[in-house]
């Protein structure tokens, strides 16, 4: 995902109203909207299933009786030494070229992919948010220097870096995590820096300064809570990028080394057998596709739940409900739009306080 795309999404999220009615916090409202978004809910379910799938990899190995690294040249390969198809000899998704159970390998591969995806995103987010906050808040020379760092990191040819590191240290998990984190943080920093620049002009920041709050306090207690929305969206949308990146590195042979399975390195081998053993290519690719798609849709869903103003091309149930006028017997605007219309037009939607509460 390009930085400009991310900036656009972040900007639209951070403009979202923090309005609540009747005791609901912004997060409660977001969750309520998210719950009613069928696509997002579907994505969450898929992701949970995928995580379970990854966690249960040893169980799957046990159930099928095929440990992950064990090759079965007799049952797992056909007469000409090619992989056998799905359902043959108890291999649910077929085998690879040396007769290993593809399902079990994909399950273990899921562990790698999800682990790398989530961990690198977490690291990148923490680093990115902190540096972005510092750059945006302090401005001046600090910002000038840090911004150059962000630019450098963004322009960096990461695959070449990975290649170089892999050739020196041999491909391993640590390099993968390091490179992917290093690739991701700068994009987040840029967005956070931009948001911070605009947020620090708000009056409540001035109020905090007038109370004597120090920079650290202002950055992390005043500004950061206002960034969590965009950051959450960004992080969720970065996860699939990280997963794909890992798959790419492994595919190129500079990621997870054999025999440990990764969807990437499975695909690397599979490309040699695509015309004889379609399952070898299709299934890992399918899992990769489903995972990245689920995270992307979830990220979209979160972004829309935080800021319902943005138009969605994917006609989820929300848009449908609006057009069909369904859902609790109301047509027309949803609450937030009404609030915004109301604010523009001087309406008060807040709960009335009885006289005496002032």
């Amino acid at each position, binding site marked *: 995902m390009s930085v400009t795309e991310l900036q656009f999404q972040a900007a639209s999220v951070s403009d979202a109203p923090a309005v609540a*009615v009747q005791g609901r916090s912004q997060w409660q409202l977001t969750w309520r909207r998210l719950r009613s978004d069928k696509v997002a809910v579907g994505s969450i379910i898929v992701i949970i299933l995928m995580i379970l799938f990854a966690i249960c990899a040893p169980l799957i190995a046990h159930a099928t009786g095929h440990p992950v690294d064990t090759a079965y040249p007799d049952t797992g390969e056909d007469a000409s030494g090619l992989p056998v198809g799905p359902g043959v000899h108890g291999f649910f998704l077929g085998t690879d070229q040396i007769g290993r159970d593809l399902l079990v390998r994909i399950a273990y591969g899921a562990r790698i992919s999800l682990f790398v995806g989530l961990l690198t995103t977490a690291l990148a987010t923490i680093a990115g948010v902190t540096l972005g906050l510092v750059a945006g808040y302090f401005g001046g020379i600090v910002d000038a220097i840090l911004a150059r760092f962000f630019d450098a990191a963004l322009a960096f040819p990461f695959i070449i870096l990975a290649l170089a590191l892999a050739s020196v240290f041999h491909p391993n998990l640590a390099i993968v995590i390091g490179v992917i984190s290093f690739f991701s943080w700068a994009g987040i920093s840029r967005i956070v820096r931009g948001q911070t620049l605009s947020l620090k002009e708000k009056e409540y920041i001035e109020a905090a300064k007038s109370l004597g709050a120090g920079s650290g306090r202002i950055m992390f207690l005043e500004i950061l809570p206002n960034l969590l929305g965009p950051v959450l969206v960004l992080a969720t949308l970065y996860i699939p990028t990280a997963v794909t990146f890992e798959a790419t590195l492994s595919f190129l042979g500079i990621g997870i080394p054999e025999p440990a399975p990764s969807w990437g390195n499975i695909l690397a081998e599979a490309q040699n057998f695509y015309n004889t053993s379609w399952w070898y290519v299709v299934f890992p690719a399918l899992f990769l596709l489903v995972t990245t798609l689920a995270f992307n849709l979830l990220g979209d869903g979160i972004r829309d739940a935080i800021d319902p103003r943005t138009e969605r091309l994917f006609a989820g149930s929300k848009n449908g409900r609006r057009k069909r006028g369904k*859902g*609790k017997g*109301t*047509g*027309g*605007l*949803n*609450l937030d*739009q*009404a*609030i915004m*219309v*109301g604010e523009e*037009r*001087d*309406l*008060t*939607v*807040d*709960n*009335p*306080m*009885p*006289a*005496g*509460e*002032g």
Partner: protein
Amino acid sequence: MSLLEVTDLRVSFPTADGVVQAVRGVSFSVEPGRTLGIVGESGSGKTVLTQSLLGLTPGGQISGQAMFDGVNLVGLGTKEMQRIRGKEIAVIFQDPLTSLHPLYKVGWQISEMIRAHDKSVTKAQGIERATELLGRVGIPRPRERVNDYPHQFSGGMRQRAMIAMAISLSPKLIIADEPTTALDATVQAQILDLLLRLQQESDTALLMITHDLGVVADIADNVMVMYAGRAAEKASKRDIFYEPHHPYTKGLLESIPHSSAAGERLRPITGQPPSLINLPSGCAFHPRCAYVMDRCLGDQPNLIPVGDAGEHRSACYLPAAAIGLSEQVEELRKQAVEMGRSGASAKVAEAIAAAPESEGSVIA
């Protein structure tokens, strides 16, 4: 014959949390060449009211009638509405920085407005007319300024430019929505002066929406006070200020610093404007009213004539003769309240009296 005759206008917005009743049955009229001031605070519905007249409320459900020169504005088709907007009825908004397009020259915007309604006007003629208009509204060196962008104008000048645009087609009615709220006092005086002068020159009717009683006291002929989507009181300017009937009007007048001696405690109205989704029963003002009676919790009061002349109307159950701020009238009110209050409304009155801001402004 009124220029604009609005009858029982209602505007509501359906939302996921309930229906927002922004305007709940408002009727008024504007005479040619005269100024009607609509006064209200946040949530009174004054802005939605005027925007709905011109079809500027997307998503709103509008009912009622608004006869303008024989045409009903409610439910008018788009093409017809476009013809009327600008040419017959012009609007001046509050913030000229957001209502003028920032990327087009001011002269061009005015010229386009003219040309949209009259295809025979050429671009050059349009700019010429725009220059003339800028001069008419008091912008110095109009020939140069006509080529400037809105951000190159100061606040006051931008508002003048908006006014120039509004009068460009000699409309019969100008709706001005808080036109001076964002301006400094001295500039506000200039703009109000300008509006009055233009009105007198071309006999345009003016519908002025504001929350500022001072503006109304200055240029309105008649006043309508709105509260929670309905008209609380309608009268001539002098009647509203010197012989108010409705407790809300009275409360507004009394809460202004001008009315109390410096250093004395102000007499605010207790509480807040109500939610337009969950309106109080009966009279929407009753939870804040110092004169609340039992009747007020039941049926919503309609506008009834009060005072002497027929034009003064108030939506209140207090006696029709109870107008003004004198002590005798206050006695009259107290008597009516004593007779009309027991049980239910007594509780409301207690709650109002108990509120911290009520000191000195309530009758027990």
